[in-house]
């Protein structure tokens, strides 16, 4: 079932947690809500589930207005950040809860409930643990019980709040793969919250990037990584180098390096910031064709398959990072304190728009390379 969030604003006392958020989640998609802590991800999820009421705006399921519907009637599967399993009930009773609290008319028989629970236990690979209590399970197992409990009532879609937040890396990896598998198998619409960009990129069909109660960008993992809408998205989706300079007549100067851009704006000279991923930094021992700037290696961190270099530009003294494959690093034969030639590729420039009338600064992305 598709979810439509229209212009939602939500405040707590004098703090605005969500500011005019709009969002469309198509049926059957696996969508990630990505953002730093406090950006309003949980709040948005709770509003969709009906655990919280918006100040303004509407929430539609499959085109039908659900804004004023009670949680109970929304038939949403909600998995909480800390699982919220019923601590005094066995795993069986936890999963059966949603079915057993139904009114007598709609409640399945005891036998049906039992079959259903065991089916779900198999689905989440926990058969045999039906009679344990939540406190006797590991974090990853609790997470799967929470999922099975939510699935038991055949929800219209699933909302997962940081499903893998409290688990260690290996279990996370496993559960991610499992969740994607589950999504393919059930074809259910799933919206999940995460503040781990890698998790969002790996799992989601669509990623919604949030910051300070706003949606910054919605797009496929490729889109948000390669065509970030603004500096926030750019910085949030991976490591980034910043170079400060000025733009005039479409030409950006960053120290000795000069870039041609397509920006046509004739308002004299303006400050501009160049953003660049560390893996786009090209390192050579001698200047080849094109523009190179010189830099000194400050520190070398071998990180398994890649090597990260901390560099300092000789022309502007700015610090930046470069990431290269281990193989390329061995070819170069460089060590700390060496001076190298650096080519800056795939920069995105952001110029603060002078015409901005809104109090919030508007950024204009311009793609350019040497």
């Amino acid at each position, binding site marked *: 079932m598709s979810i439509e969030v229209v212009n939602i604003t939500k405040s707590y006392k004098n703090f605005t947690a969500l500011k005019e958020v709009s969002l469309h989640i198509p049926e059957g998609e696996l969508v990630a809500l990505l953002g730093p802590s406090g950006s309003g991800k949980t709040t948005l999820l709770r509003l969709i*589930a*009906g*655990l919280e009421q918006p100040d303004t705006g509407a929430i539609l399921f499959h085109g039908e207005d659900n804004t004023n519907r009670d*949680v*109970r009637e929304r*038939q*949403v*599967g*909600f998995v*909480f950040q*800390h*699982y*919220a*399993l*019923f*601590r*005094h009930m066995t795993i069986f009773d936890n999963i059966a*809860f*949603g079915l057993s*609290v*139904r009114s007598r008319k709609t409640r399945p028989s005891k036998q049906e409930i039992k079959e259903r629970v065991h089916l779900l236990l198999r689905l989440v690979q926990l058969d045999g643990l039906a009679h344990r*209590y*939540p*406190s006797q399970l590991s974090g990853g197992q*609790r997470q799967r019980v929470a999922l099975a*409990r*939510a699935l*038991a*009532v055949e929800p219209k879609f699933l909302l997962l709040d940081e499903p893998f937040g409290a688990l260690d890396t290996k279990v996370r990896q496993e559960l991610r793969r499992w969740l994607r598998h589950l999504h393919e198998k059930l074809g259910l619409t799933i919206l999940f919250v995460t503040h781990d960009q890698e998790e969002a990129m790996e799992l989601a069909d669509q990623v919604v990037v949030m910051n300070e109660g706003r949606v910054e960008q919605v797009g496929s993992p490729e889109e948000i990584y390669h065509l970030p809408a603004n500096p926030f998205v750019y910085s949030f989706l991976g490591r980034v180098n910043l170079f400060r300079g000025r733009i005039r007549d479409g030409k950006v100067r960053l120290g000795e390096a000069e870039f041609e851009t397509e920006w046509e704006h004739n308002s004299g000279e303006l400050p501009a910031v160049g953003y660049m991923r560390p893996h786009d930094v090209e390192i050579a021992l001698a200047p080849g064709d094109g523009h190179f700037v010189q830099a000194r290696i400050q520190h070398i961190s071998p990180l398994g398959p890649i090597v990260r270099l901390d560099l300092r530009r000789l022309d502007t003294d700015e610090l930046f990072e470069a990431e290269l494959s281990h193989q390329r690093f061995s070819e170069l034969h460089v060590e700390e304190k060496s001076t190298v030639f650096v080519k800056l590729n795939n920069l995105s420039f952001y110029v603060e728009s002078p015409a901005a009338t809104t109090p919030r600064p508007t950024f204009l992305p311009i793609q350019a390379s040497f």
Partner: protein
Amino acid sequence: MLFLILPLIAVFMEAFKQGTAVFLSAIMEEETFSAVKLTLLVAAITVPLNVTFGVAAAWAIAKFSFRGKNVLLTLIDLPFAVSPVIAGLIFVLLFGSQGIAYPWLEANDIKIIFAVPGIILATTFVTFPFVARELIPIMEAQGKDEEEAAVSLGASGWKTFLRVTLPNVKWGLLYGVILCNARAMGEFGAVSVVSGHIRGMTNTLPLHVEILYNEYQFAAAFAVATLLAALALVTLIIKSLIEWKTQRESGGEHV
């Protein structure tokens, strides 16, 4: 430890000083019987009353935010803050022969002061905070997550309360009930003011002990006192059983 146990031992020793026969005759006396009956009646009414109120208040305070929450909290603490004697006097002032409500009570032929209703009122007031005070911190620590999970799974408010909230606090609740009951049976000050000490009518066990003592029937006084002491012992035993049980259950139980 010695200071706690010694008085208990003393009570039992005094009670049996003149032999089992005196002890038994004191206990079997009709006035003692009626005191026991009244004490049980008072507890049977006040405890359920305060449990109902305490659970409702703790639930509202811990799981919801509303205006006047602090006022309610203060009201719950009031009986702890006020001396029981003062509490008794307040009821006398309200319902006694000089009281504000007296003319109306008189006209409707309702007796409160120097009668059972007064004792029940005073006891209810004094034991009012026990259950709520016991439950509020437990409920607050548990948060609203499980309740929210229950509602999102389609459970009604009442079913959520019965199947999630209540079972999660059952030991705390039992603990509160035990303390409330012990106090309801043992309360002296407030009850003494409103009861009027009518033998065989408005005497509870603690009042009965005092009367016997004042009449120099020491053996009888101590004999009756053993009943109260036994109650205290049972209370303590149940209390430590509950503590032992909750500790065992909460071992590693942080979901």
